[in-house]
């Protein structure tokens, strides 16, 4: 099946302290219809920038993209004008963010904001749009859609606002939904509900979802494929089950070890913490960008860029360790 989104060799540079700094370096991944891809990494890894690049919303506009392509349903998005992109945004490609309050207009009711979107993109009358808005709220499991519709954003809790945002995003049945850390600001119980909603939307309407998060725990529950990013590079991509069970990249392994769990070990044992910090993109780097923090780093890692290895089953890892850290030389 043809993928709904195909990003290949995407590179992005943004102005930095010492001239243009590479923010994304040779990023490739694809997303099929009805698939949920987890884009994982620490802050500064470039995961949000990737989302913006797909949507052509980069701070510097199209000029920031220095190479590669973004194919959406077979159509090239890089180089599209702002006006051309507007026909995609909201309708074919929807986006939700971490803080829904900043995306909802505080002076309008939920009804007004939902119907506006539906009327613009679906060309419906206000009456029809209102009915559809109520339907959408029911779909995101809001019990009393009529009451919620008449609310202003500040009257809703964080979880409810995120539901409304999802309802708005899904109201034009987009083919691609980009969710940028949508649950990071929420309680775990509410987070579970949002994950459930996204799963449902994906199954029912076949929407492809890119779910961005720093927490492999959350991603493991929702996504069928995982892409791990580090400092603007793609460290590892593969089916979720494989990446989680046998991570190929030391960074993925470290991220996994950092997730708090209660299924094993006693009280107050230590979590694995990755030493050091994500490098500053404006500094010139050589070799594997993770090498300074990697427990398995070898001499070659510090001088040369690691090759992309195929571990089979569309599982790729960018590392010098043969067959990845979990199956390779017995290091672990």
């Amino acid at each position, binding site marked *: 099946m043809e993928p709904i989104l195909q990003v290949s060799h995407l590179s992005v540079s943004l102005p930095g302290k010492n001239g243009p700094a590479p923010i994304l370096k040779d990023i490739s991944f694809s997303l099929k219809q009805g698939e949920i891809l987890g884009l994982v990494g*620490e802050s500064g890894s470039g995961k949000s920038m990737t989302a913006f690049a797909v949507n052509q919303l980069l701070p510097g506009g199209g000029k920031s993209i220095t190479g590669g392509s973004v194919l959406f349903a077979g159509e090239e998005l890089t180089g599209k004008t702002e006006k051309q992109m507007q026909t995609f945004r909201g309708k074919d490609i929807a986006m939700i963010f971490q803080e829904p309050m900043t995306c909802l207009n505080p002076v309008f009711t939920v009804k007004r904001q939902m119907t506006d979107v539906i009327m613009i993109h679906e060309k419906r009358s206000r009456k029809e749009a209102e009915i559809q808005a109520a339907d959408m709220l029911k779909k995101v499991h809001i019990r009393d859609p009529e009451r919620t519709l008449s609310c202003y954003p500040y009257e809703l809790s964080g979880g*409810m606002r995120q539901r409304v945002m999802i309802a708005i995003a899904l109201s034009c049945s987009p083919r691609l939904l980009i969710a940028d850390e949508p649950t990071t600001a929420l309680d*775990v119980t509410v*987070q579970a509900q949002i994950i459930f909603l996204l799963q449902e939307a994906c199954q029912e309407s076949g929407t492809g979802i890119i779910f961005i998060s720093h927490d492999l725990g959350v991603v493991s529950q929702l996504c069928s494929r995982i892409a791990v990013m580090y400092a603007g590079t793609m460290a590892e991509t593969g089916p979720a089950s494989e990446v989680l069970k046998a991570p190929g990249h030391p960074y993925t392994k470290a991220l996994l070890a950092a997730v708090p*769990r*209660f299924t094993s070990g006693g009280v107050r044992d*230590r979590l694995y*913490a990755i030493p050091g910090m994500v490098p500053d993109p404006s500094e010139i780097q050589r070799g594997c960008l993770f090498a300074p923090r990697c427990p398995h780093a070898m001499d070659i890692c510090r001088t040369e860029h690691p090759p992309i290895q195929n571990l089979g089953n569309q599982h790729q890892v960018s590392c010098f360790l043969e067959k990845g850290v979990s199956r390779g030389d017995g290091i672990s």
Partner: protein
Amino acid sequence: MTAFLEIKDLTKTFTLKGFFGKKTDVHALNGISLSVEKGESLGIVGESGCGKSTLANLMVRLEEPTSGDILLDGISIAHKKEKELRKLRSRIQIVFQDPYSSLSPRMTVEQILTEPMQVMGQYTSRERTERASELLELVGMRSSSLRKYPHEFSGGQRQRISIARALTTEPDILILDEPTSALDVSVQAQVLNLLTDIREKMKLTYLFISHNLAVVKYISDRTAVMYKGRIVEIGPSLSILTSPMHPYTKELLAAVPIVGKPFCPPRETAHETGGTDAERGCIYYDRCPIKDEKCRRERPVLEERQEDHEVSCWKL
């Protein structure tokens, strides 16, 4: 013997004024009682709005309780005047959630770290700077950071500075109000490990507040689960995690995303409900999957079900 830290029937009621002067009471805390031993670490878990942050604010006296008391070594801190509070304030310090708004953007790290000692009139100016640089090293940062401003640091580093600031007055008790929930998972691990080390080194007592039960395990000996301003379950952390008894604790546990654990869809009843407190009956009635008639009529109280493990539920 009096307990080291004792919270007695602590209640905080906020009065909201409506449009036409109509007043409604919101019970942020509703008769919380706890006792904490010296050197112990107590986790407090619950969703936003359960009153856990109000408890933190009362502990450091940013707010005054409506009724009830907080006793530190038998001395009440809840109703003291600001002047008499001075000494006690240095003994209880707090680390806030947001690493961005918790440090003044116009002050250098040195100014930030010496401020508490200056306010309390501790040490000479040189000693204060020395102490600031020692503490900075204790939290794993270079003392050259003293001259920098907060915006030059990442979220995790800022949180380290906040921890160092809280330690300057040599407190006995540290209130940690979701200190890691704004951080990346990888950074969270660093900060949690740091907190564990510091506690051992300085023999501190922790009150660790979080919405994630899995995080609490790494730092707390005991855990209290709060819901709508009350404690519904309290006991040893391991016991709470491995054999939770209250249905709410079970719901919280099920929601924690764990690698390798299959996702369990939330129950349809697990929706946020209005904050209105039922007059009688169990506070968890609306969301409870195993409720019955008795739960609606009578409110359960905390009862010891296992050793040191108390639960307030009729259905056990």
